[in-house]
């Protein structure tokens, strides 16, 4: 086939190429990785992308910018509200629209709930890759509570299109607030069980510690951000580094690791769930009354000529939208810089010479969502 597989096989007689194909239980999505194996050791990895390419950036050049909002949700289905947030923020900054305070609070609460939901799914699915069949059931049980809460207010369970330019589409009510508070209490009571049964398990620790070590320098060269970067010790979080929305008002920590291995990013994501709960609590306590849509949002939203950038902290890392506008309401160029794209590009360097089981561990720790890589 086209990937020079034949050449790889002929060159090194004792190596063979194993295809972790687009359909595989542990590549989360349609990712194909060509592994050149020598026994159990992966000597060379070649990710093959593009199986989920849906031309989002081309679509953006043909639709008015406001109408692109549903597309943002389809790129990362797990962190859809945060993708919505980044895009809404981009257009609001560009057009000079100021959103009411209640909107900011609602956006923060729902985004953090979305982050927790994404981390819970990652948690369960990662452990499933490692062979533990039970924790996914427990984490999905917790996740269902979030999905129910968000479904009431946004109308969907996964690919949310809730934010609009200038506000949100529907207001939150008393049921949402009480439901969220009950959920915070419930999840906090579940964390000790996860710590005991899963995180402290000797087999899990042996699978994750010292596997796939990253350093801040590697992260700088590849553009790796998010929990992987924080696992190496760099406390770089968009919510703190370039505070957007009202994140500067809240008191929360940025969990970091030290070694940069799979265990470090695992624990960073686990502790981030607790920090998100803190943010949600503070936001619910300070939720003001007010309108849920900015005063004057034109139907045809003309964006002044120039280029604009909006960076937010997605569950997987830094998400940046870069918009080039020529003054009309249709973008001239929209680039979506997704975190999993840069995170995945490190695996040929990180996983070279690793055992196959470690490749699976390392790829799970990257927390990939393939649709956001292929866009």
């Amino acid at each position, binding site marked *: 086939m*086209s990937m020079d597989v034949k050449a790889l096989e002929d060159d090194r007689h004792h190596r063979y190429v194993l295809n972790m194909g687009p359909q595989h239980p542990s590549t989360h999505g349609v990712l194909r990785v060509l592994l050149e194996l020598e026994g159990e050791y992966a000597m060379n990895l070649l990710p093959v*992308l*593009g199986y989920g*390419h849906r*031309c989002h*950036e*081309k679509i953006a*050049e043909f639709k008015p910018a406001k109408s692109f909002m549903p597309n943002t949700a389809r790129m990362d289905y797990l962190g859809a509200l945060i993708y919505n947030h980044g895009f809404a923020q*981009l257009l609001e*900054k*560009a057009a*000079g629209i100021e959103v009411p305070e209640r909107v900011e609070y609602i956006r923060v609460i729902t985004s953090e709930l979305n982050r927790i939901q994404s981390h819970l799914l990652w948690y369960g699915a990662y452990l499933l890759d490692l062979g533990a069949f039970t924790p996914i059931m427990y984490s999905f049980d917790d996740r269902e509570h979030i999905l129910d809460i968000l479904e009431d207010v946004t109308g969907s369970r996964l690919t949310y299109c809730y934010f609009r330019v200038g506000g949100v589409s529907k207001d939150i009510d008393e049921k949402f607030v009480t439901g969220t508070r009950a959920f915070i209490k419930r999840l906090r009571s579940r964390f000790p069980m996860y710590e005991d049964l899963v995180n402290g398990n000797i087999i899990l620790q042996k699978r994750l510690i010292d596997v796939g070590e990253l350093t*801040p320098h590697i*992260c*700088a*060269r*590849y*553009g*790796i*951000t998010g929990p992987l*970067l924080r696992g190496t010790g*760099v406390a*770089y979080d968009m919510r703190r*580094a*370039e505070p957007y929305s009202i994140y500067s008002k809240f008191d929360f920590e940025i969990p970091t690791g030290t070694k940069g291995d799979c265990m470090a990013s695992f624990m960073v994501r686990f502790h981030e769930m607790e920090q998100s709960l803190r943010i949600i609590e503070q936001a619910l306590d300070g939720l003001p009354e007010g309108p849920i849509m900015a005063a004057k949002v034109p139907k045809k939203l003309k964006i*002044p*000529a*120039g*280029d*604009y*950038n*909006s*960076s937010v902290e997605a569950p997987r890392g*830094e998400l*940046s939208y*870069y918009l*080039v*506008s*020529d*003054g009309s309401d249709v973008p*001239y*160029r929209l*680039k979506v*810089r997704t975190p999993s*794209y*840069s995170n995945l*590009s*490190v695996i040929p*360097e990180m996983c070279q010479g690793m055992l196959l089981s470690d490749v699976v561990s390392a790829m799970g720790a990257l927390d990939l969502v393939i649709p956001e890589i*292929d*866009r």
Partner: protein
Amino acid sequence: MDINQVKKQWQELSTAVEDVEYAVSGHDYNVCLECDKVRDFATLMLDEGFYLVDLMAVHVTPAIEVVYQFAHFETRCRVLARAFVDDKVEMPTISDIYQGANWHERETRDFHGVVFIGHPYLKPLILPEEDVDLKPLLKAEAKLKDVDAVRRKPPEPAPAPKAKPAPKPEVKPAAVKSQEQS
């Protein structure tokens, strides 16, 4: 990282360094480069501790513009560096300096046809192998704009009309009153 120090080094390498208003445009500095200075710029950024956020291309009239976005882990400093491709639609690669650029450059080659000289494996990344000449994000003739059309318009004319209304509220009521009185 001392930003002034770094800015001086940028000014040596580049044709223009602009300060940009962060609240509106989301980045701090805009650096315009010649395509042969791109590699030196990238080496400088890596030494100063910047990470590569993004690498993409915009199709405008004099030539395709390749935009590099860098940001810093410790201080808030987001830099956009731009360079026009040369006549043969080529650009030197920075994938040996910033390995993350490897995939970004392959994608730019897919979508815009920009060939990066020195890239180790410039095969299609997102598009299938047979669509290597498709270049989907190149604009059609009718839609292609000049580079000035997509640049931010200078804000100078705006303060002048704003300056005028300020004295007016002081003058008009008096004039009206004097008119009414008279």
